[in-house]
């Protein structure tokens, strides 16, 4: 282990100020748009060592290191840093937040310049394509014409795929982890139940709750559903089993008896402190709308890309199962692209992309090294 990244700062880039607003996939316009981002390491002279890290649904720009005085590190700190899988001694790593989010980027909780009040449901529907389009503005602003790599897990993997299709000239390689080219009915269904939980909360108020009571019960249930889908049956059994929480026998009421109940309640409650319910609605909708093969078949869509690919999945991930990764691999093979894929043995379910560090740290450095050498 190398040194830690200290005094990391979130930065902000604002663009698309009226009258040159950003045009979204839906045809609606939005501007100005701010993206929160962080960078680690140093951009080399020929700007050939830049890696863009893309986060999952509830993630943010703070991927690695510590903010000043903070005890909690970024969400992928075990993967990004000096001598880690994404070695900041070698590479310039950028992590960008998404449009529609609530962690410093323009989203439903931002103030609508036309009304002077938060957008709420006046915020236009955004898609994964729009997220990527906004990030391209940021990458242009940083003066980078070609990214060595785009990488992400879950929704981050979908953004990585979209990057290779939307901007084929700007991406040398993509690492797509625990992702898919489109949601299945089951995946949409889980998101819809979570959205309904938020919208059924009387405090949601049609999305107009800013400055009032936030729909914390709804968002908390949404997060609980998410957590169930992120873990595997075995990892839950191992962590909780039927253990009771702080009591010796069943209480015969509806307080939380089992540890798993306590865990979910805690996860739900703490999520409410850090995430906006409307952002959850917007981003989960973007995930459901995502369909890389929307305009034609997957092979012809992926034929456009000029990237090499590393596709990673995990054995116990039932939310984004390995078959969905293999579907990407198959299409890449048929379209003649350079692709490597691995199904890493893991018990952690979908969460594995955040916690199964050993396998990912073994495969990513030599893969990046090969791509980096080739681009020189």
């Amino acid at each position, binding site marked *: 282990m190398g040194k830690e990244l200290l005094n990391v700062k979130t930065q902000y880039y604002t663009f698309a100020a009226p009258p040159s607003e950003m045009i979204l996939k839906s045809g609606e316009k939005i501007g100005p748009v701010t993206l929160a981002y962080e960078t680690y390491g140093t951009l080399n002279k020929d700007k050939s060592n830049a890696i863009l890290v893309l986060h999952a649904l509830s993630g943010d720009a703070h991927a690695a290191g510590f903010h000043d005085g903070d005890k909690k590190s970024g969400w992928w700190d075990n993967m990004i840093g000096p001598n880690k899988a994404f070695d900041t001694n070698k590479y310039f790593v950028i992590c960008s937040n998404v449009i529609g989010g609530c962690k410093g980027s323009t989203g439903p909780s931002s103030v609508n310049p036309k009304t002077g009040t938060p957008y709420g449901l006046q915020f236009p529907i955004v898609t994964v394509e729009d997220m990527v389009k906004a990030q391209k503005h940021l990458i242009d602003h940083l003066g980078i014409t070609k990214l060595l790599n785009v990488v992400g897990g879950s929704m981050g993997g979908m953004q990585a795929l979209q990057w290779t299709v939307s901007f084929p000239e700007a991406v040398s390689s993509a690492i797509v982890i625990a992702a898919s080219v489109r949601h299945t009915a089951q995946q949409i269904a889980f998101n819809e139940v979570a959205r309904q939980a938020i919208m059924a909360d009387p405090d949601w108020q049609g999305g107009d709750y800013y400055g009032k009571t936030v729909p914390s019960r709804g968002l908390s249930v949404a997060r609980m559903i998410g957590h169930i889908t992120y873990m595997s049956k075995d990892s839950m059994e191992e962590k909780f089993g039927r253990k009771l929480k702080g009591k010796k026998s069943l209480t015969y009421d509806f307080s939380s008896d089992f540890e798993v109940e306590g865990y979910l309640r805690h996860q739900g409650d703490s999520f409410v402190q850090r995430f906006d319910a409307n952002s959850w609605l917007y981003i989960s909708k973007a995930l459901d709308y995502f369909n890389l093969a929307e305009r034609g078949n997957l092979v012809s869509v992926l034929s456009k890309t000029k990237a090499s690919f590393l596709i990673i999945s995990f054995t116990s991930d039932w939310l984004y199962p390995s078959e969905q990764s293999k579907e990407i691999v198959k299409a890449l093979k048929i379209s003649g692209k*350079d692709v*490597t894929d691995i199904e890493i043995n893991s018990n952690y379910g979908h969460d594995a992309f955040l916690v199964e560090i050993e396998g990912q740290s073994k495969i990513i450095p030599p893969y990046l090294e090969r791509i980096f050498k080739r681009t020189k």
Partner: protein
Amino acid sequence: MRLDYKIILDFIEPNTNVLDLGCGDGSLLSLLIKEKNCTGTGVEIDEQSIYKCVENGISVSHGDIDTELLDYTDKRFDYVILNESLQQVLYPKKVILESLRVGKKVIVGIPNFCHIDARFQIFFEGRVPVTKELPYEWFDTPNLRFLSIKDFKYFCRKNGITIIKEKAIANDKIINFKTNLLANMGLFLLEKIYV
């Protein structure tokens, strides 16, 4: 260099495109890239071997030969290699014919289960042979198919597959005489003309 690798390298024209099925740690592909300026990719089922392939700078797909082969278009590769992997697949006939579909030529390396040592063990000891080249007991062998050099040639004849070149080896030496008795490995360069 391993003699079977050397023979395979001799079978392969430089600057060609190769698919190695059951590529292990990617060492044969690395050699082909280095010595013959080939491009190539592999298929391997063992997770730990995938890490080694990537360390060796090889592109590789993690999966079963039987299913992965279906992902490639016709004559996509100049050569498809099945070195010491054919005896471990569930549907060897399908795998050979599919390999001949995706590759212009196919290279097969098989262990010869009718080597003289094995024959002696069956005949005199009455036991399923365990030899230096085939070190597994019946209960832990990864091999699903047991064939001889003669069996393989018969198979090719029956299925309209042309053997362009063949070599047999034992103990790091080329065997030219009574190969089905004296060699413990046979290597073949195959082609099938579809009319």
